[in-house]
């Protein structure tokens, strides 16, 4: 589904990604772990199409298409979704408006009819209930004044509504209390399916207790230094990253 080959990228003239390779198949859940500043957010931003990154080498193919040549909205239409590490506050645009505009834009792209307003609202409300988000959030401005945990839950709500094929989750577990973590994990698990893939950036094993990854990668120094199964995450939790870096240097 997603094939990243030898990706090199610069930010503000600095090399951040230095030959990153990653293969993700439909139905898989990948966890990406790694030290702060190693380039995890950079990677998912580049995949979602954010400006400000200069790809100097390598390629990314998504469902057989050249992902890097697409603008962000085209990627969303094609089923890419990024849950932001820091969801953006947008005063003056309300949550339900955004959901509806996004949902309809994506349906339109797929050649599907727009959902009737009442049906749409009923669908969103059911998903909000599932995510344990109060219905009053529908009419609040996008992320404005939301607590850290509320923002993360809202990201997952958007994901449930938009039903992407490739979900990129950037530290969706950070800043969540235990109960919220369970709710978020429940949301993510709900979308797990043989047609969908997920790439979760995380620092902690605790998310992986709820969402069992098929593969775990260590991103450091701008590359995937090591990959393994779920046990790698447990080992990282115990031993930190130094040994991976040492192994790679050897």
């Amino acid at each position, binding site marked *: 589904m997603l094939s990243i080959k030898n990706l090199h990228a610069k930010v503000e003239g600095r090399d951040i990604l230095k030959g990153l390779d990653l293969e993700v198949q439909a139905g898989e859940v990948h966890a990406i772990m790694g030290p702060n500043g190693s380039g995890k957010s950079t990677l998912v931003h580049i995949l979602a199409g954010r400006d400000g990154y200069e790809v100097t080498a390598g390629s990314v193919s998504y469902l057989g298409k050249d992902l890097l040549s697409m603008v962000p*909205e085209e990627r969303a239409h094609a089923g890419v979704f990024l849950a932001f590490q820091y969801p953006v506050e947008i005063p003056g*645009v309300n949550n339900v408006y*955004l959901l509806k505009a996004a949902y309809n834009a994506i349906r339109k792209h797929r050649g599907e009819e727009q959902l009737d307003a009442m049906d749409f609202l009923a669908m969103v409300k059911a998903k909000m209930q599932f995510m344990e988000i109060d219905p009053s959030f529908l009419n609040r401005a996008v992320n404005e004044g939301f607590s850290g945990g509320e923002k993360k839950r809202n990201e997952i709500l958007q994901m449930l509504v938009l039903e992407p094929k490739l979900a990129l989750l950037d530290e969706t577990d950070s800043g969540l209390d235990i109960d919220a973590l369970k709710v978020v994990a429940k949301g993510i698990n709900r979308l797990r399916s043989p047609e969908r893939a997920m790439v979760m950036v995380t620092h902690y094993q605790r998310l992986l207790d709820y969402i069992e990854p098929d593969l775990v990668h260590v991103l450091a120094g701008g590359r995937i230094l090591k990959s393994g199964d779920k046990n790698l995450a447990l080992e990282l939790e115990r031993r930190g990253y130094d040994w991976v870096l040492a192994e790679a240097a050897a």
Partner: protein
Amino acid sequence: MNMTSAALRPYVEGFKTLETAPAGNAPAWLAGLRRDAFARFADRGFPGERHEEWKYTSTRPLEKRAFSLATPAHDSVSARDIAPILVHEMPVHTLVFVNGNPVAALSTASSAIRGLRIFSLNQALEQNAVVLQPYLIPESVWADDAFTALNTAFLKDGVVVDSDAKVQLDRPLQLIFVSTHQTSSLACHPRILVRLANDSQATLIETYLGLEGAANFTNSYTQIVLGENARLEHLRVQRESLGDFHVSRVHVSQQGGSSYLSHTLNLGGLWVRTDLQARLEAPLAEAVFNGLYAVNGRQHVDNHTRVDHLAPATRSNELYRGIIGGHARAVFNGKVVVAKHAVKTDAAQTSNNLLLSRTAEIDTKPELEIYADDVKCSHGATIGQLDEQALFYLRSRGIDLQTARALLVEAFSLKLLERIPASRLRAYAARQIKTALPRQSAVAEWA
């Protein structure tokens, strides 16, 4: 004198025509008032750029054009032509003027409201000229103002609203001033007087619409007098054509406990200048100034506001927001004066501006003159572009770039709308704003 005699000539000729025309039922003192006003204008001409209040707005474009006096209304204006500016969110009284002349066929205001009278200025002059006389003398702050002088000199018609105490106007009064295409450009000088006696309330919707191809000059003067605890909500929608010139002065004097709530929307015109002033003359008087200007292309819009806190415990709160694209230029100057004895004054002012292109320009300036102790005064101004992070966030959700930009521009205007408390008035204002903001397909044109 700043003006060349060539630039002055059309005004001199216009005034001659006016003076030789039959006076009708106009009172004799009016002729004297006009003559004095014209002499003042002819003596000074339009303000030059060295004039502190006109630093960023040159009157040259106005001087270069010769406007003739407005002729009687064009019959061809229909209800359909003015439909875009009509209020259909709620029932209203309507008075329509075309190029300065009242058009009865399009008007629906009834003058038979208990305790409150709505006249055309001409009717008022015929019926109650003596009471009116002091109100036709311009406010002393504008004694030297060329546009006020012009308005007085060429004063022809307008609107008078006059209430008894404890009256509530049953529905908003909408004034519609329409500028139409003419073979030679016209000037008109509407005069509006609103006097609400103690404990009275009204909503005034003052609107200016330009029809396709109009290139006229509208120079209006609105004077508002609020008695104790009177309340006026005043929405001004200025949506003239891209060839139109617009100047307006609004002067409000307020007694104790009165409140004046102003929403100014500058959504059209080529060259626009608005001066809004409130004098809070007695304790607990309150003025709220809300404004939104949206300009593009080569439009120029200048808003000068001023609040005088002249008594203790008076309040003012001001928010102006600007959306500026293309090569347009906007000016905002907000002055707040707190007199020595006006202790416990509470004054807040904010100006936020969104620049949609590199060539758009804004000059925003707060001016605080505080002579009293124990006051709370704040001001803030921002100038920014569309938030790149918000744009990316929206696009990452599948919303295309143009729609995302339009959405954020509209969102920017919402803060202003939120300050219109009456929901139906707000809905009308929202509809007016929407027509002026860059549409999805056209956002690029603002860049």
